[in-house]
């Protein structure tokens, strides 16, 4: 009978508070994840909106091609028109 009471006391003083404490820690940790996930979702959404201009890169690519082609044509003309530098003796 004494052992029963000792077991009861251990259960009430040690096991139940420890279980409650650990469960509370798990619950708190799970609860703290939610705001972070929501924040990440907002950031991902904002990042996705920021990337709406990415298709314009195709226009930039085309314009760069045209510009470089123009520069190449102009350079080729200058190559014909302008004398080469004299080679230093």
């Amino acid at each position, binding site marked *: 009978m004494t052992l029963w009471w000792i077991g009861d006391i251990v259960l009430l003083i040690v096991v139940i508070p420890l279980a409650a404490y650990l469960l509370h820690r798990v619950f708190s940790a799970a609860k703290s994840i939610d705001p972070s996930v929501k924040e*990440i979702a907002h950031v991902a959404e904002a990042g996705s909106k920021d990337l709406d201009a990415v298709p314009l890169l195709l226009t930039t690519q085309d314009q760069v091609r045209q510009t470089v082609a123009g520069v190449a044509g102009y350079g080729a003309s200058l190559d014909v028109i302008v004398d080469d530098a004299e080679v230093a003796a």
Partner: protein
Amino acid sequence: MSGAAVVMIVAVVLIVLALVVYLVGVILQLRKITAGLDQVIAGVSQILEKTRPVNDVVKDINEQLDAGVDLLEGLLVKKAGLVDAMGLIDGLYPGAAAQGLRNFPESKDIDAPRIGEVYTKGTLTLARLGREAPIAAASPNGPAIRNPAYATASSRRLYPGGRPLEPEPLPRSPVIGTDAPVQYEQREDIGKPRKRMPSKS
């Protein structure tokens, strides 16, 4: 049933109740997290979808720009020479010559000249382009001075004896005035009596 057994049962029930309450709470939180992660995955998927072509496009743009830089650097060095090219660059963008040209590593060691003092040929050449460019070949005023196929030879033909340092002397301007040795538009009545007009009667 003894008192100790009753206390034990109550304690176990309390533990089970605590487990149920907290675990249900954790389950609810995990479901919220799952919903939030679904939103994150949707956003990240959009980001992935939108950034997929970026790599190829930027790579292509960089290749084009690299080709442009190679072309311009090569042309500048070919036409102006490496030393004068560095002087030109430093004249336009002070301090830029220290970085050197990408395709000419030795350009970093060149002491860039002050281009305003030493560079005249290119400036004059560029100034002549307006009337000597090949595009003027179809000009209604006649063919261009330069032949684009023989550009250097035709330009040298402008000064076959070398470019003159100073203009040839021109005849002096004639002296004009009443004391000039040669009088222009000489009048016949100069030095003769003044003609009298007939009087009115």
